């Protein structure tokens, strides 16, 4: 089967009727995908709010389990908040593709002139806006419960803002691989949690180092590096995973 | 005690893995024989 390179069959006329239409650029596709998924998420707000409430509840369980003495709570605070954030993001991962897969819109996305990695990156961005970002914004409130001072809360929010997008990116791979599979949501957790461990270590580690008065810059920059590398590589992996799942 | 515990565990794991493989081949043999018997029976 001779496979020729992508053959351009003349000027692509995607405007309706007026041939002079400028070609719609891929970043436009990215913005459209983010806008589309965010709107869809706000239409079914329930899921988004439930994940947020889950985060708050899980975090407040620990003082009840471990006892109220502040010294201990202050030590475990970063770990508790980060693990709760991890689990909360994990809860909303199936949302990424499942509904589009059921109602057939995922196939429309795959047949869109915009490259699939761009559209998938948009979906990941939208998922972060509705899951990771809200977590990072209300985390300081919970940090107060654990007696963290303002500097530690600042680093906690910074680490969550840098870390949660990576969770959405890696999680998208798991969500795409387990599309349409029975018991998929638990399977996603099993597949993706090992990959979350470096983010957890550097995220929680950042807050611990600032609590110990050390330089937390390294942790945050490593998270930033993960964010950049992830941003450039995971969309392609997720696009491949979607194609595999729809084969 | 610890030394024999370690080497013993490895030996045990190897034995278990090999027996599981043998069982799998036996199961396949039954499947093949059954499918060959069906074929001869209804002689499609």
């Amino acid at each position, binding site marked *: 089967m001779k496979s020729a390179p992508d053959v351009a069959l003349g000027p692509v006329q*995607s405007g309706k009727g007026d041939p002079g*239409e400028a070609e719609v650029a891929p970043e436009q596709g990215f913005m*459209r995908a983010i806008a589309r998924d965010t709107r*869809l998420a706000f239409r079914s707000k329930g899921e988004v709010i439930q994940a947020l409430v889950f985060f708050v509840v899980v975090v407040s369980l620990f003082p009840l389990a471990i006892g109220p003495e502040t010294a201990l709570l202050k030590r475990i605070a970063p770990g508790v908040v980060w693990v709760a954030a991890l689990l909360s993001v994990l809860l909303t991962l199936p949302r990424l593709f499942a509904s589009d897969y059921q*109602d*057939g819109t995922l196939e429309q996305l795959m*047949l869109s002139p915009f490259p699939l990695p761009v559209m998938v990156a948009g979906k990941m961005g939208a998922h972060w806006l509705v899951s990771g970002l809200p977590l990072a914004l209300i985390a300081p409130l919970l940090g107060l419960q654990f007696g963290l001072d303002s500097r530690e809360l600042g680093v906690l929010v910074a680490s969550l803002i840098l870390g949660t997008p990576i969770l959405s990116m890696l999680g998208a791979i798991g969500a795409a691989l387990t599309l349409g599979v029975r018991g998929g949501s638990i399977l996603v957790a099993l597949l993706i949690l090992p990959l979350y461990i470096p983010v957890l270590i550097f995220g929680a580690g950042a807050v611990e180092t600032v609590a110990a008065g050390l330089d937390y810059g390294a942790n945050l920059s490593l998270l930033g590096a993960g964010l950049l590398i992830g941003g450039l590589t995971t969309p392609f992996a997720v696009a491949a995973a979607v194609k595999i799942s729809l084969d | 005690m610890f030394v024999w515990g370690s080497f013993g565990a490895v030996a045990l794991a190897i034995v278990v893995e090999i027996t599981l493989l043998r069982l799998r081949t036996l199961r396949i043999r039954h499947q093949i024989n059954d499918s060959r018997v069906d074929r001869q029976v209804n002689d499609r």
Partner: protein
Amino acid sequence: MASSAVARDLGADEFRAEGLSLSRGPRGLFKDLSFQLRRGEALILRGANGSGKTSLLRVLAGFTTPDAGALFWNQQCLKPLAITSRRLLFYVAHANAIKDELSALENLQDALRIDGVASAALSPATILHALDRVGLLSQRHLLARKLSQGQKRRIGLARLMLVDKPFWLLDEPTNALDAEGVELFAGIVNRHLAGGGMACIASHLTMPLQGTSSELKLRASA
């Protein structure tokens, strides 16, 4: 009609499938299947359930990689889901690509945005006209969740009227449509074919299609 303009510009004259074969586990769905479609032609896929109609359409759309065979567009081999094929193919399956959380109007706007239509050309006029033609103008702001299966299918029909791509792959497009809906559907496809478009439709109904259309019977093999 829009699609004829696109077909001419893209020079989409002839689509050819050669030696396609696919099997799902023990079931060989189709073997060494070839066919050719020129502008204005339609191919109707007949066959009982599970005879591979849907799988064939998904192979043509590029989702499913066949065990053997290739697709050609104007004698050039087509990589599945490559940018060229994505600009030429429109595919809709049983689940007719409608988001329940969006209204009829929003669904159509969303579909066109995904289709890469420049935002300037997203004028509601053409969309409202299409909705009017399928009789959903009054319910255009109603969430799709509240519409009946037949009405959702009609949103799909409105979507067809706005599609800019020359080669349509439709899987049971007339499901849940009443007689008048089927009439409307045939009209849309005929206009598409008359405008130089092509279509491959899996359906049980005999289609009142004017253009030259051929049939392909897929046997439900063992």
